[in-house]
């Protein structure tokens, strides 16, 4: 009974990349995403809070989101893992400095000193949860809950248009 052809749901919001001005907005569907919570964070080799390293996004003192295209993080005593792959939609934006557009969505200070390359945060955008990481000023990854991803994408596109 494993021969069913399953489709992504909700129906892929981004059947193909969206272009707004210099920005290319693309949905990435391949990688897995796991949340990992630690009983004793001091014993875990995580990056500092608010930093991303090797696919580990440390968004809280005892919480990290781990991006993986292979095996999920191995559960162990004191490390509590949850598969979040289907809970979040991953959106990549490239092609231009996204910060003028993000200024319409996100209340955090995304200036170079406060949010350099490799920074990450879990915050709110247009009343929606979002995890954002900065790879470069013109390369950002945004995760947003899947059920409302269409709304988020709409707000992101509108913000980009306003920032043009």
């Amino acid at each position, binding site marked *: *009974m494993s021969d069913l052809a399953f489709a992504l749901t909700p129906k892929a919001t981004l059947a193909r990349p969206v272009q707004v001005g210099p920005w290319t907005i693309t949905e990435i569907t391949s990688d897995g995403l796991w949340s990992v919570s630690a009983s004793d964070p001091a014993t875990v080799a995580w990056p500092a809070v608010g930093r991303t390293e090797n696919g580990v996004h440390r968004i809280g003192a005892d919480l990290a989101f781990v991006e993986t295209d292979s095996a999920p993080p191995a559960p162990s005593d004191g490390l509590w893992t949850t598969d979040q792959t289907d809970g979040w939609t991953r959106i990549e934006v490239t092609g231009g400095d996204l910060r003028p557009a993000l200024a319409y969505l996100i209340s955090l200070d995304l200036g170079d000193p406060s949010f350099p390359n490799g920074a990450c945060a879990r915050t709110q955008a247009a*009343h929606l949860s979002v995890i954002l990481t900065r790879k470069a000023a013109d390369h950002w990854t945004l995760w947003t809950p899947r059920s409302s991803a269409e709304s*988020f994408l709409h707000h992101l596109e509108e913000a980009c248009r306003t920032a043009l």
Partner: protein
Amino acid sequence: MSGYRLATAGRIDRSKPISFRFDNTWMKGFEGDTLASALLANGVSLVGRSFKYHRPRGIFSDGSDEPNALVTIGEGAAATPNTRATMVPLTQGLVASSQNWRGSLKWDLMSVNDIAAPFLSAGFYYKTFMWPKAFWEKVYEPFIRSSAGLGVLSEKSDGAVHASGWKHCDVLVIGAGPSGLMAALTLGRTGARVIVADEADANGGRLARESLAVGDELGADWAVGVRAELDSLPNVEVLPRTTVWGVYDEGLYGALERTERNGTRGTHWRIRAKHSILAAGATERPIAFPGNDRPGVMLASAARGYANHEGVAVGRRVAVWGNNDNATRTAKDLKAAGVRVVAELDTRKGDEIVRTKGRHGLREIFLSDDRRIEADALAISGGWSPNVHLTCHHRGRPVWDEERAAFLPGPDLPPGMACAGAVTGAYALSDALRQGAEVGSDIAEALGKPAPRLNVPEAEDDPREVSAFWQVKAKGRAWVDMQNDVTSKDIVQAQAEGFVSVEHAKRYTTLGMATDQGKTGNVLGLALLAEATGRTIPETGTTIFRPPYTPIPMGAMAGTHRGQHFQPLRKTPSHAWAKEQGAVFTEAGLWLRAQYFPQPGETHWRQSVDREVIATRRGVGICDVSTLGKIDVQGRDAAAFLNFVYANGFAKLAVGKTRYGLMLREDGFAFDDGTCARLSENRYMVTTTTANAGSVLRHMEFVRQCLCPEMDVHLISVTDAWAQYAVAGPQSRALLQKVIDEDISNEGFPFMACKGLDVAGVPGRLFRISFSGELAYEVAVPTRYGDALIRRLMELGAPMGVVPYGTEALGVMRIEKGHAAGGELNGQTTAGDLGLGRMVSTKKDSIGTVSSKRPALEAGDRPALVGLVPVNKTAHLQAGAHILPPKVATKTANDQGWVSSACHSPTLGHDIALGFLKGGMARAGETLVAWDGIRGVQSDVTVVSPHFYDPEGERLRV
């Protein structure tokens, strides 16, 4: 015609003419004009009517302090009323209209109010409309409302959207006058992150409108040069046409940028700044004298500014009058620009204007020494009031400075704020420049930046000796607050009637309560109140300044969050499929859920819902329940934690079992209910109601972090990660067995079992729980497979007559079964009220347990859950009806409860309801009345068990 365009003066671009319309007349202006300057250039002196007396009014100022020239911009739905003509840049095709008249602007029928002025003084409304009492709602209020206000809203959506966003900086410089520019330049050169916000074009503030020199060049040119350097610095952002309107906690500033950008009408910014420099300048104030509101009377700085900046003469014969050196400079500038100045009057020389004349505009002025001067414009200066407003937004009080006859910023500034320039009383240009540089340097040092040595440019000093002179005491009305039509007599009258406190006098007279917030009139009004009460101005005090500094459109507050953008929309995994089936959707929280699935031939929603219920109870039905909140709970202390959060016991829940759980609030009332499944030794899946998903997780996080920090427990929402379907009905097992290999028989998978297993080859989960009262399961797969699963289940179930059912059928079946939901869990009911009192464990401590034992919550006469059926089985019951004994008056004293949920039961063939009744089930069998006053219906009902269907629960255990 009272005004004209000067031949050469000004900084407008005469090569770029602009056409615009005012009322019904098309006129010409130039790029660089404001609507106000263009109107003056076209000889328009009458631009509106006053608020109360409908007096003719003209342009009074050249900035955001304008009290008179309020116009409507645009037409139809897009019309924006009460816009200050002084703040509107002239654009091609601009349409503006005058306001507040009946008939025409020139011949306003409502100007009869001016004749009746002796009866309309301060307190008129309070004294006059007291009797007869019945007249208030039917006569007085409608009449006053129809006459009130200035501009009129279109009451239609204009379709325009304001953007909103956030900015961050080290230093926010408020105002781009000489001190603001100097401070920004000082800081910008250190590399500090600077934002400069200016309500005009950020090219020098008042300096751009003056003839003063900085170094070897005109001050206005110096400002343009500084602006160019600021624009070139990557760490500096200049926001022209941006008003900082409020100061809030932690360095948060509200700012409205009026520049239209990519279809937005403007942007509302929330700016976080470590420091701010208030360089907001000062506002010139008038003198109160009889007839000082006539069109043509304006502030001296405005008359000077229009000549210097827009090349407009405000009249053909201009008189100048003041109590300070500013008036002298005005006459000098006007003459240099080619304006004819017919009189230079100075209160310090004893010149006092006692009367003016002119029907729709100034024609003559009369002096106390019997001189009569023909003039179509009068430029007046009563001194300057520093714009201290933002310094007061954290409740700081300004302090009176006798030398300058003005309020200056007090010692209690908002944290991080410093002041520079005219706002501190540093009126001289050289002082303003130096102070800007010094404040900028100080802040640079505080930020740890190397403070640069700046050469403060030499500047032409302009003496501003002020001799306090507030009013001319002569016969006739002298206006203090132009926009709210408050005269000096109103102030005196308020004092005479006992309103000696400045706050009371303000409210009694409405001084300073109009949209301009009394920028030109407040200090004058305070001075007159002080005179009337025999006190000094410091003794009189001032009213507190609150945000906003200037009017902010409600649309700017809303930003993009309007219409469909008011809130996000969440879609279920089966949304696309349900849409293909023609489902009717309803909003549940943020979710869009299928309400019912109409089939061909069904003409009423009840037909669809009845069919879905019956088909499910007889065969099998499927409902998308992915919207229920799902919280993954893990940790060594997960069991202890849940035992503390839930009112019923969870310590002994076995792995592979699910339990119904009830959460109480701290105050003992019921909070939420749901199920909790133990997936492994240290892992649970908590489900919540759809509506409470967020609040339950927040509550549990609070308990985890604040009440049980010693526990090792970890919470995370997985609501979006799982597609979950309720598969209900006698055939549900047979259907699921087609996609699940494992044994899910009653023996292999009994009621309340749970398990992780393969669902059509996909790792999923199965729960044997039932909300419908039938044999039922909830099957979950990762969300990406949700669409495929619903399609496959419907395909495989077709031979069994499977139906999808929506939230309506879900609701009907839960009422038939007597399950509590939103109507019952309304925050006012206890576990006892819900018939769940025995669930509250007495063997452990949990949140709300102690409070739930309070006597009032255990009182026997509390309304408790009952079932209700109509005596006449064709009668309809409605949620919200009150329950009354038969044959009593419908009043609160006789109220015995309410109907919380109601529906038509296709299973029973008549309406049924759940409700809360004093005495609860002890009154089973009684006949009462369900009285629905709002809908105007009532029905006799019989009290029955709330479990209408299968009360023994046999069907769900088969």
